[in-house]
């Protein structure tokens, strides 16, 4: 039991340390630009087309 918990602690404590190191590295080397996740333009186009269709119908119905 002690060994088991020991491993779990050791593992997660290591992870705490690594996360800290990573965060510092990321912070210095690649300060986050305020970018929006890119998506394949094909998908975006498709979704936009759908959205436009939904809205067009909505507006049309609403204005009846």
């Amino acid at each position, binding site marked *: *039991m002690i060994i*088991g918990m020991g491993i779990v602690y050791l593992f*997660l404590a290591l*992870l705490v340390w690594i996360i800290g190191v*990573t965060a510092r590295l990321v912070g210095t080397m*690649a300060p986050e630009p305020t970018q929006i*996740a*890119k998506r394949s333009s094909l998908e975006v186009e498709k979704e936009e087309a759908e959205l436009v269709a939904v809205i067009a119908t909505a507006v049309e119905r609403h204005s009846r």
Partner: protein
Amino acid sequence: MDALMQLWASTGLSNFQADQAVMMAVGFGLLYLAIKKEFEPLLLLPIGFGAVLSNIPMAGIAEEGGLLSYLYLGIKSGIFPLLIFMGVGAMTDFGPMLANPKTLLLGAAAQFGIFGTLFGALALNLIPGMSFTIKDAAAIAIIGGADGPTSIYVASKLAPELLGAIAVAAYSYMALVPLIQPPIMRALTTPEERLIEMAQLRHVSRLEKIIFPGVLLILTAMLLPSAAPLIGMFCLGNLIRECGVVDRLSKTAQNEMINVVTIFLGLAVGSKLSADQFLRTETLGILVLGALAFSFGTASGVLMAKLMNVISPENKINPLIGAAGVSAVPMSARVANKVGQESNPHNFLLMHAMGPNVAGVIGSAVAAGVLLALVQ
């Protein structure tokens, strides 16, 4: 007339055995809990239904060649629990944990429940009528991790004949989190501690979120390969979610794929709820140990948070969020938030509690790896 006799001989009525009737009742009981009490309905509904189906006399749905016997292959091979874990990974946001990595230690502490139960299960052998091997004990102990797919994965490797009872116990106690945890949390904290407000979480960059699953996987590969299937698929799901370039895979992993596998997994678990495997004194032991494991894990998380406050008094942690370390995402984080708001309605602990909550998932998987490495 012969045909009539043949038909009668093939009816359930003429073949019903008392224990099958009892197990069907257990199945309907699970359905009741799932539907009426909303106890983890996504899993307990298929599990309960699977229990009913597999105990219909003469139908042989869970026997070789029956539908549920085929579905069970998905558990036996590990495919279903691992795919669920991938889906859970795709639904998990590690942001709160990365913003405050110390909460990982709370997720670690809550795994005391697992190892405490391991001893408890071995101790139960002293009671006449109970007999657990070390493998059984390890499979039961993992209930204390409050993580369904991990429990099913470990049980399928170590103690397949206990799988039904273990899965039912794991999901039931996950559903009971709002009842089991608050009294323990209140008992172990002072009113002042419950009022502690925590600093707002820092922003976590997208790059950190993308790197994290890779880092976690490397660490697992180096230190605990026995946990690599579980943590690996979890990291894959999370990477698919965070990388931002495969959104269509992420959407499917979080929805249709996990839904289909959930139905199949639940039915297959239910097929292990047969009378001869479930109606034993051991099942009682499993249910009692499961409740103890949960309570023990909750207490460890809270006490760990208090200990951390003693060690580093700046940036105090509200010890209530330690209880969220048992995983049971997002239920236990909500419980921590709710108990905190009883003291101060303007203290929002939810995001802070999500850190130990997702850390608990990793912690359980790590503990599962330790058990598999030591016991198998």
